[in-house]
């Protein structure tokens, strides 16, 4: 039992809006959440739900004009919103690292991976060249790269997707960051490789005691790796719970829809269940619940008013009018 939970990231009322020719795109629309030391938080949602933009907003990778980022992101007491790029660079890759979806296109094809790792290391750490190389080899070993000394001088295109993804994890780890944001790191990989990478991440997380924000649309992955889950839809968080709670007792109709639309053996021979309709275009949100156009349990109120966040069980929060009366006070 951990008595003292260190809260390392607190996001409050985060809004990331993009101004386009067709209007304002509210990619992330007033979300709040926190991350504690040593836990793995999963952000789940379809494409366009705003999960990647959330990650980019945390790291200040969103180009501020033309976009607008409002709200508060507290990282170990430091406010990140409004930070200058120069300040952000001290945090990026050093205290918060990110790994990306397509390992094959996330490296510069013209440099060896050793050179690229060295570049990141030298940018943040006060090591000499020899020290850096040793540390790099050690990190490569820790992500189970065979013959790391040889790999050091190889180019990205010489390696498989799985290996590159592990190298990207190494790149993220080398500076010993406190948070790793993983943006769909296994989506582009084969299922077997996926399992390897996930195992690796769990192993590393327990040995480094770091925190991970894991972004995905794959509930299977969430079940395997996460401690807590936040479900995002159309720029808002609609449900927050621990992994067990979410899978055993899903509350929001969208969450239920996601869970039932996974292909299971029981469905053999039957029509596969799916959620009707499409995610509304991010510049055309109504005043009501974003999911109202597709919700099987929709009521009149849902179209007109945004539902509040209601805590139904311990640490299980859902944003839906269905639970108005049953809020656990």
């Amino acid at each position, binding site marked *: 039992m951990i008595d003292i939970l260190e809260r390392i990231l607190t996001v409050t009322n985060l809004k990331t809006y993009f101004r386009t020719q067709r209007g304002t795109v509210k990619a992330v629309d007033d979300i709040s959440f926190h991350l504690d030391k040593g836990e793995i938080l999963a952000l789940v949602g379809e494409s366009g739900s705003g999960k990647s933009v959330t990650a980019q907003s945390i790291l200040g990778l969103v180009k501020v004009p033309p976009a607008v980022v409002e709200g508060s992101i507290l990282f170990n007491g430091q406010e990140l919103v409004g930070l200058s790029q120069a300040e952000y660079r001290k945090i990026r890759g050093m205290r918060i690292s990110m790994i990306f979806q397509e390992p094959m296109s996330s490296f510069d094809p*013209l440099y060896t991976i050793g050179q690229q790792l060295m*570049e990141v290391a030298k940018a943040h750490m006060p090591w000499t060249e020899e020290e850096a190389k040793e540390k790099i080899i050690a990190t490569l070993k820790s992500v189970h790269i065979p013959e790391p000394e040889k790999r050091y001088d190889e180019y990205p295109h010489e390696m498989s997707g799985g290996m590159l993804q592990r190298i990207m994890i190494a*790149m993220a780890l080398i500076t010993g960051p406190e948070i790793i944001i993983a943006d769909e790191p296994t989506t582009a990989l084969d299922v077997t490789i996926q399992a390897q990478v996930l195992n690796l991440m769990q192993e590393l997380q327990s040995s480094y005691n770091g925190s991970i924000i894991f972004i995905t649309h794959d509930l299977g992955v969430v079940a395997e790796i996460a401690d807590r889950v936040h479900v995002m839809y159309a720029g808002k968080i609609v449900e927050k719970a621990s992994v067990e709670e979410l899978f055993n007792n899903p509350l929001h109709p969208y969450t239920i829809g996601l869970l039932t639309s996974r292909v299971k053996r029981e469905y053999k021979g039957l029509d596969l269940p799916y959620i009707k309709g499409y995610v509304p275009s991010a510049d055309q949100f109504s005043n009501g619940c974003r999911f109202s156009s597709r919700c099987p349990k929709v009521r009149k109120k849902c179209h007109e008013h945004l539902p509040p966040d209601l805590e139904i069980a311990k640490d299980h929060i859902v944003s839906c009018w269905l639970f108005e009366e049953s809020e656990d006070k």
Partner: protein
Amino acid sequence: MWAFIIRRILIMIPMMILASIICFVIIELQPGDFVSQYLDNPRISPEQIRLLREQLALDKPAITRYFMWVKGIVTKGDFGYSFAYQRPVGDLIWERMGWTVIIALVTIALQWVLAVPMGIYSALHPYSPGDYVMTFTGFLGISIPDFFFALILMFFMLKMGSTSVGGLFSTQFIGAPWTWAKFLDLLKHLWMPLVVVGVSGLAGLMRVMRGNMLDIIGSPFITSLRAYGLDEKTVRRHAIKNALNPMVSIAGSELPNVFSGTIITAIVLNLPTMGPFFYNALLNHDQYLVMAFLMFIALITQIGNLLADIALALLDPRIRMS
């Protein structure tokens, strides 16, 4: 890598043979031959014409003449005889080659030195006034016919009182020994062909560089680099290196374009390069000269492409290893 180079060089041989056949066919298709221009001359009798033809071996069938020509090249290095200039073709080309190559190389160097930074600036500051100006100038550059541009420049030089417009040297320096003054005089004349030929190529190169940079800047690994906290200068370095790569292969294929681009300008500006030469040879049906020139250009093109491919392989590890 070496195997690749050797293979390419070996392929060049049959290519050149085929090229020689094509050259020969084109010339043969041209109506008339060198002697035809004398047909209308009343002072030359038909008998003399027939003799002249026999002398120049123009009466033999095409295939025979072709093999005679090839034999000459392969066994004696003799590229034929220029009827108009009454000298071996090899000598004529050799004399002109120097200036042709110099002008071509200097033009390419200038184009690159200017186009790459302009393209980078344009890409990093898209839609800025500077970008618009450069893009518009680029469009102008590729739209203006080079001979027209040469005419305009010449006109302005004349209007401004210049006495020696065209050519590479003022009259007093032709044939004179090299001095600093002669060199300055050369520069005063050289800028015109460089500007005329360079501008259109510059425009194209700049736009390609701009396009490459924009593509790269939007690609995932640039975002990754930023996410690792690397500073903008480093990110830019990565972007430029990646954008520059495909340009290198363009440079190689630019070589023949620059050569041919100088032809018309050289005719207008009266430069001592192979261009005006080739033109006169065409008009005179001086067939061996024409063929030798075409073959030379074809060879330069092949070499240029080869150099470009080698450079690309050196710079891009993905190609080097395949």
